[in-house]
């Protein structure tokens, strides 16, 4: 635990989910599961977020929004798809307006299955995301150093 990055801030975006997964994401922040003990904070601001939690599939209207949010997040960042809808499109897959899972527009790092995904699974996904974030931040540091040397 000591090596994990200690302050992952979440950005939670509801794609075209049925809201089931969103309720579970919020449940993870309630006193019962208390994600804040890991330093997790739910921020509404992409500029300040480290982990992008996305629920629900991508449709023709929100694909630009999701891309935009992803681009606004500073590196290092990790994307977590919560629920089968965000993973593959789920029960809505064959709808006329659904393009597929979150990975149809942005690179997804961690897939949390379930319909709806359970809070335990979501926290587990976030903890894995934090590990990945740690790795990414090393890469980011190395990249910054290289840039400085190059300049």
């Amino acid at each position: 635990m000591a090596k994990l990055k200690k302050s992952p801030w979440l950005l939670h975006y509801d794609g075209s989910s049925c809201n089931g997964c969103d309720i579970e994401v919020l449940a993870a922040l309630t006193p019962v599961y208390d994600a804040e003990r890991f330093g997790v904070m739910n921020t509404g601001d992409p500029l300040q977020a480290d982990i992008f939690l996305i629920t629900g599939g991508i449709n023709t209207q929100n694909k630009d929004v999701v891309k935009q949010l992803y681009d606004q997040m500073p590196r290092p960042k990790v994307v977590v798809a919560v629920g089968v809808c965000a993973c593959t499109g789920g029960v809505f897959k064959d709808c006329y307006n659904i393009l597929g899972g979150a990975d149809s527009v942005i690179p997804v790092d961690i897939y949390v299955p379930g319909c709806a995904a359970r809070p335990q699974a979501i926290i587990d996904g976030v903890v894995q995301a934090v590990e990945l974030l740690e790795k990414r931040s090393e890469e980011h540091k190395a990249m910054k150093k290289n840039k400085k040397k190059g300049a």
Partner: protein
Amino acid sequence: MNMILRIVGYIVLAPIIGGLLEGIDRKISAKMQRRVGPPILQPFYDVKKLFNKQVILVSRSQTFALISYLALMILTGAMFYAGMDILMCFFVMSTAATALYFAAMVTSSPYATMGANRELIQMMAYEPAVLLSCVGFYLAEGTFNVNEIAGSGKLDIIFLPGFFVAFVFILTIKMRKSPFDIATSHHMHQELVKGLTTEMGARNLAIFQVTEWYENVFLMGVVGLFFINGSYISVIYAIVAILLVYFLEILIDNTSARMKWENMLKITWIVTLFTAGVNLLVLMLVRVA
């Protein structure tokens, strides 16, 4: 020499104390909500992380405005702990707040702009109480000089209970606590997103955070000034008072929902005028008699 030592002490220790206070704040808040809560050092982890993130700037001048905010706030606190004029300290603090306003305004983001405008309204709400407190100190001690007020041998709180109530009341605004956290929202997903700080990310948000710590330590110093009279035992009174006030702020934060700015302005002015005003009248009468 002593003065330089105190200034250096403030510059070095204030962020540490401010960060710890915020950590304890978050822990106590969590306990009040029956959660485990983050570790006490969490605010430091947050700031360290923010410094290591990629810097995306909406506007370059934001960094400049934020650094001015930090520098002016350090100046405020340093002047206060060095024992200079208290009125001057509060003027510099207002200038610092203006720098923060510009830091949010330059981004021209709707949320940040709205937050910045509300910050100005907040200033309007707390400024009377702040100035009246200075007047109170002057009436009680005959001086604005912090050193002389602290070393006079008089226990100011006995003369200034009304001013103290008014000052503690506006602390809720200055510390950005609910119900008066109208310029920024500490909790996610409110109508302002993050208000004033919406367009601050990475390094800039870290600067903002550290400045808040400096500010809190300065404000707590003013709370302490009501209790200090130069003797050693009064320092203990001051520390107890500061901790109690801080706890009160956390309690208020956790038990109230945020207000509309109109109500905030009304309530703070009424409370200020009533408590500080009555206290002022009594002090004047005593002086005349």
